[in-house]
């Protein structure tokens, strides 16, 4: 079965040979392609924003859950406020873990995005398949100085978004991806 080890099968070997022939004119050094990707994490801005939003919304809920039942029913009902409070603590930790799990790597020919703690997902998009690169930034994100980069291919299922980047980094990434995409562009 070729699935496990494409490197030593004839097919991948042949592909590698043609690749090497094609890549000779490229300026890259002749390192093996199977290098470990250099991962980049997300800047802490996204975590700050999400945690702040969590605290604000759950704080309001805690307040409501603590005050309203105590006013209308019995003061003992104020214990209900512990529920959103616990949720807040749990969410605080979860957001941190989720933020740490996001990372991306620009390799010579494709972009890798990896994310998720319990439900892990890793996406590889060859630059030649990119149809458009989008930088978006909502009002809240703008306030925190964040922007996200989204990649679209011809397949709608391709879900390649990098959220919470520094706007300058997002634009650099967009320009670089567009440039690489043009250089390696391929049709459908």
């Amino acid at each position, binding site marked *: 079965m070729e699935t496990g080890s*494409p490197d030593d099968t004839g097919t991948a070997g042949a*592909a590698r040979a043609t690749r090497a022939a094609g890549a000779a004119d490229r300026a890259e050094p002749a390192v093996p392609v199977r290098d470990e990707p250099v991962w980049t994490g997300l800047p802490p801005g996204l975590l700050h924003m999400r945690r702040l939003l969590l605290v604000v919304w759950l704080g309001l809920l805690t307040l409501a859950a603590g005050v309203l039942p105590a006013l209308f029913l019995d003061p003992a009902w104020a214990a209900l406020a512990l529920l959103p409070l616990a949720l807040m603590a749990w969410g605080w930790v979860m957001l941190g873990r989720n933020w740490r799990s996001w990372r991306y790597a620009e390799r010579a020919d494709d972009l890798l995005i990896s994310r998720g703690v319990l439900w*892990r997902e890793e996406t590889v998009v060859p630059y030649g398949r990119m149809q458009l690169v989008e930088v978006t930034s909502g009002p809240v994100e703008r306030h925190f100085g964040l922007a996200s980069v989204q990649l679209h291919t011809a397949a709608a299922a391709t879900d390649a978004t990098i959220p919470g980047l520094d706007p300058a980094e997002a634009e650099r990434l967009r320009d670089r991806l567009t440039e690489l995409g043009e250089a390696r562009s391929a049709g459908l």
Partner: protein
Amino acid sequence: MTGPGAGEDTTGRADGTRTSGPPSPGAIDDAPLHMPNPHPAEPPNRTPGPTARTVESPEPDDTTTTGTGTWPRTGTGTGTGTDASPPVDDLVERRLHPVTPLRRAWAPVAVIVGWAVHDPDQAQRQLTRLTTTHLMIGLAVLIPAAALYGFLTWWFTHYAVTDTELRIRTGLLFRRTAHIRLERIQAIDVTQPLLARVAGVAKLKLDVIGTGKKDELAFLGADEASALRAELLARAAGFAPETAHEVGEAPARQLLRVPPGVLAVSLLLTGATWGTLLAAAVVPTLLWLATHNLWTVLATALPLVGAAGARSAGRFVGEYDWTVAESPDGLRIDHGLLDRAHETVPPGRVQTVRLVEPLLWRRRRWVRVELDVAGSSNSVLLPVAPRDVAEAVVARVLPGVVVPTGPELSRPPRRAARCRPLWWRGHGLAVTDAVFAARYGLLRRSLALVPHAKVQSVRLTQGPWRRALRLADVHVDTGANKTVTARLRDAEEAAELLRSQAERSRTGRRDAPPDRWMT
């Protein structure tokens, strides 16, 4: 597989690719798609002939010999040199067939009839109140108004073929102009609904990603539609603009024709039919035992039987006389008993091919082959065919692809049984040098093939349960918005697969034929 009337040598060819006999597969593979000059006797630089539209030539044998002397297509480079005529700049705008305004004529009648059936009392009362003068006035206003509307929409709809585009200009109040780029076409369909066949007209639809119902040309004269299809394909293939409208239809060679008997048996053997019939037998019996009321029993049994019959009959009528042929312009699929449809898929447009094998077909080794083309809604390549023949046809559709068989597909590791008991055995994966092949299903097996060049992105997903079992899924996304998934792979294997598949997808594109397939 072929019926009594089908061309004899076509089965031989279809089988020949499998049996690697004296007509070696290589020779067959070379024949249609990449040879620029199928008729070597023909001089390559011919002068533009006077009778170019071979579709109108009085050849009775339609599928195999549509193209005549003008066919051997010369590429852009060779064709232009001898042409004395200057490049034509003036755009010839054409109108649709004059019966077009009538295509919605039945709508108001249907509305009135529907209303009368829905509410007979009210209709009766209104009808008695209606005097002759009222009727006359109504008709005198309505008919000219409808006729005028129909005429104006027809009058203001134009289409034109330029060197690179098909332009459709339409709209009376709200103008709409669609420019459809020809090198982006994924498929061309010419369809003829029953009434259109009576009137001798046809619909032409160009499948490009993002086109909708509005972008079809309905209706054209039947001959005009075939001529236009030939011209569009010739231009899309990269012929010189001057010669494009006279190269005519590409010669097609029939690969397969599904006999009606086989189609009927195959439809009887599908689970859906039997499921509905079983429900039609069980549910009324239970109702009879519960209520002893004949009317409720009939009221449930009849629709169930009707649904089973209607679905099978509908599929039979739609898939009747299914013919698959091959031409330098790609795959041709013709089918239909009442509504005829003629689909053309140019080379290199197929994104995914699926071989579906229902449980009851397995003993006969029959399969159904489906294909996905970006932007197209058609999905069936073969409604039913023996497995060998189907594999041969798949080898023609995806050149150089050998369909992996059972033992070549690797199963998930045994611990996958804890994730998906029993059904884990149905999953399988094979990666050859040309395709990514993933199978799923225990009773109704489905094997999906994606050429590496068509992979848009690769994803690996792993939920908590799979993670505990060290398993992962690998998804491969294609341009037809279909995702093929290899489920329950070993985690390390999946990670390796993710990397190597991205690599293969990138390099696989190098060998792919160009978008303009005759250049």
